[in-house]
């Protein structure tokens, strides 16, 4: 037997304190298998040890929340016995190493989280951050990631309807790939992962287990043969076809009252799925590893327990339904096996070749997992000297809309099947959020994901609040009532005080905004250590928001018709610090725009109510975010291939500030009747101004400049093609 040495312990990422705790729990030394299990169960990824304390502070309850964080995904009530299941998850590191497979398996993983709960996935989104376009790796990473996301979702037949994609040098060596999935389930058909019923069989189904993704640090043992280096791939290969089979077979099985508990095998594979199910059900498990379907020869218990082979599920079924369960999997051509049984011992007992090779108490291992209150410190800001440039309104606008971050993303989204399932009413290029009809009904949900890392880097708390508010605003602009969010917190190394500061502040920001907007957090994911050679990514807490549109005819997109008037809702102060405009002028320092959550609520409620009560008057709606008023208007012109006559209000002193300022809580409402909206706004004491009229084929800022819409479109379209074809 392998001796547990100090180096083996640290290679498993286990600290000395943690090792002492392990000895205390076991009342003896662990063997290698047990050490491996502790190491993955207590890893940052599975135990959230650096963030748990702070995540607990987030608001997770609400009248529409059916299931908050803790299960495979969060669930909200959307009426008529329908529930929406959703979550976002990161696959950052694997996507950097192997962009295609890394991104693909990220999509696969999040979809399994959704359909293990009984839901049928109905939409995928993704939030992507790449390094500077000048960085030599960026192009391959971009094309690999987008193809990986597309191919996986397309093959399973789930529409990929939206997302965001930004470039910034802080991601040069740590790209972010966050995938979100939304599923639909009947309220009384939800499945959970709470194992129950002494003697019930544990069924394994899906791909055969290989040596995929057994982590570097845990490869230290001496039992491997010579070509073991080659035979332990760190990157998992995804098989979307297998995923489709799993999805359909699980849906078929779920109709049969056979499943007691079900969980996908995600990170830490068989270990985390079996421990989590047993821990939630306060029971024990006997695992017989000889029964695990293996892809490779001579796999050890250690490898089987730690493998991260994709497209696998674990479930507890009723003994009487076992035969039928296996029959259904067989019909779908899937490998399934009974690999264990539920016991009352509270222990995980692992057998291999008829002998007990590992025995661990389940509850203590889960409950005693470390929780750290890591020290944090506000970083001192360093100011680099800047050579400011001055630019005209026109050239600033053209620069922004042809920049990597604001160019048309059609190169990306055209690779995603958005129309499969026939329920995509708006994919996200057509509206501020994607709008997906609930099949066979007249309702729809709106979904969006948002984050502004530039703001977050300057003031993590405010930046995170703005992320929450922006997602809320995007849902409102699409005609939805916002309901809840999922979050994906991407940061650097939490053992550094400045990073821990960002994490705590960002979580506080999310908490404050969500509480104020009555917009609870129902699921989420944390990805830490996104740094290379001491350089961390910008703090990137991505918010995925979901809202409900009770009547799909009230959903709004970026539409406008000739003769329509465009009104701005909300106050414009002309905040240029950290704006797109300032960045073009090479001014990179400052603070994010302030956010008044009361103002946010008031303006949002107004827009929401106005769309509801005066649906036929409102042609479209758009929120104002990066780039300010002028970029929001240009986006409307581009999308509709229609001209605009824009009038800067007479009381505006600085037109650049007014046009490019990124003040929060503002919307553009496109209406075909100006009197009604004015009257309603006056009654509700809403700041409303008419600023543009839909007219002709030129984008015209009166007294400043004009440009043909055709040209605008050309500017907006060229970047991706040039970059990829280069």
């Amino acid at each position, binding site marked *: 037997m392998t001796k547990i040495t100090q180096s083996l312990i640290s290679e498993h990422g286990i600290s000395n304190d943690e090792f002492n705790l392990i000895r205390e729990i076991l009342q003896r030394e662990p063997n290698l298998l047990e050490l491996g299990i502790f190491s993955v169960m207590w890893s940052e990824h599975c135990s959230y040890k650096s963030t748990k304390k702070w995540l607990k502070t987030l608001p997770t309850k609400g009248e529409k929340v059916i299931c908050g964080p803790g299960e495979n995904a969060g669930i909200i009530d959307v009426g008529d016995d329908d529930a929406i299941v959703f979550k976002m998850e990161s696959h950052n590191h694997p996507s950097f*190493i*192997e962009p295609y*497979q890394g991104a693909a398996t990220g999509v696969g993983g999040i979809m399994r989280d959704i359909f293990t709960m009984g839901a049928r996935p109905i939409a995928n989104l993704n939030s992507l951050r790449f390094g500077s376009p000048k960085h030599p790796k960026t192009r391959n990473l971009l094309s690999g990631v987008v193809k990986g996301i597309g191919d996986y979702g397309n093959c399973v037949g789930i529409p990929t309807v939206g997302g965001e994609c930004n470039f910034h040098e802080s991601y040069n060596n740590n790209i972010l790939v966050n995938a979100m999935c939304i599923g639909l389930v009947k309220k009384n058909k939800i499945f959970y992962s709470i194992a129950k019923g002494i003697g019930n069989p544990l069924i394994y189904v899906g*791909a055969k287990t*290989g*040596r*995929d993704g057994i982590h570097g640090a845990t490869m230290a043992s001496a039992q491997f043969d010579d*070509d073991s280096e*080659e*035979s*332990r*791939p*760190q*990157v*998992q*290969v995804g*098989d979307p*076809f*297998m995923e489709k089979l799993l999805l359909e077979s699980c849906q078929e099985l779920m109709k049969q009252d056979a499943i007691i508990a079900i969980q996908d095998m995600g990170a830490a594979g068989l270990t985390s799925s079996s421990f989590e199910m047993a821990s939630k059900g306060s029971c024990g498990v006997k695992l017989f590893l000889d029964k695990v379907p293996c*892809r*490779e020869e001579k796999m050890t218990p250690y490898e089987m327990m730690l493998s991260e*082979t*994709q497209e696998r599920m674990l479930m507890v079924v009723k003994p009487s339904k076992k035969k039928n369960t296996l029959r259904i999997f067989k019909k779908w*051509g899937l490998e399934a096996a009974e690999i264990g049984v539920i016991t009352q011992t509270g222990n995980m007992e692992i057998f291999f070749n008829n002998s007990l090779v590992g025995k661990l108490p389940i509850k203590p291992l889960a409950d005693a997992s470390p929780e750290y209150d890591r020290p944090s410190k506000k970083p001192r800001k360093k100011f680099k000297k800047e050579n400011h440039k001055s630019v005209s309104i026109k050239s600033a606008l053209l620069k922004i809309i042809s920049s990597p971050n604001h160019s048309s993303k059609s190169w990306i989204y055209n690779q995603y099947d958005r129309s499969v399932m026939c329920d995509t009413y708006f994919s996200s290029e057509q509206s501020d959020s994607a709008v997906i009809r609930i099949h066979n009904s007249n309702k729809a949900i709106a979904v969006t994901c948002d984050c502004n890392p530039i703001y977050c880097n300057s003031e993590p708390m405010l930046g995170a609040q703005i992320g929450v508010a922006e997602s809320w605003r995007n849902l409102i602009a699409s005609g939805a009532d916002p309901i809840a969010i999922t979050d994906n917190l991407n940061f650097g190394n939490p053992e550094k005080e400045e990073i821990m500061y960002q994490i705590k502040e960002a979580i506080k920001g999310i908490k404050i905004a969500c509480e104020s907007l009555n917009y609870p957090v129902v699921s989420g994911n944390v990805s830490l250590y996104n740094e290379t050679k001491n350089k961390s990514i910008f703090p990137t807490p991505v918010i995925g928001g979901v809202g409900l549109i009770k009547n799909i005819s009230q959903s709004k997109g970026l539409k406008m018709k000739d003769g329509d008037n465009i009104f701005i809702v909300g106050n414009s102060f002309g905040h240029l610090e950290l704006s797109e405009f300032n960045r073009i002028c090479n001014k990179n320092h400052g603070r994010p725009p302030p956010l008044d959550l009361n103002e946010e609520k008031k303006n949002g409620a107004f827009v929401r109510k106005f769309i509801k009560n005066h649906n036929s008057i409102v042609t479209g709606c758009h929120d104002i975010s990066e780039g300010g008023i002028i970029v929001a208007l240009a986006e409307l012109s581009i999308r509709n291939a229609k001209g605009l006559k824009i009038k800067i209000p007479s009381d505006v002193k600085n037109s650049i500030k007014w046009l490019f300022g990124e003040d929060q809580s503002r919307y553009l409402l496109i209406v075909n009747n100006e009197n009604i909206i004015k009257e309603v706004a006056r009654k509700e004491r809403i700041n409303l101004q008419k600023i543009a009229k839909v007219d002709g084929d030129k984008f015209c800022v009166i007294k400043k400049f004009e440009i043909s819409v055709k040209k605008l479109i050309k500017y907006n379209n060229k970047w991706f093609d040039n970059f990829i074809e280069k």
Partner: protein
Amino acid sequence: MIYRVYINFKKGILDPEAEAIKKTIDNMGYNTVKRISKGKFFDIEISSSKNTLKDLEKISSDLLSNPIIENFRIIKK
């Protein structure tokens, strides 16, 4: 001169395509087929220089294959 670069998955990497093909061959009734694995190749015509092989190595490892999951082998045709 023409060189051929062979690329295949490293041992132990899941190859779902090969598995799907194998299953179909089984279903077609050929029970003598034991195993099937897949790879690709590139035929590269290159004008000779003293760096030819070094260049090909570099192209193969940097562009044609991903060393994390694939092996390559260069052969003169």
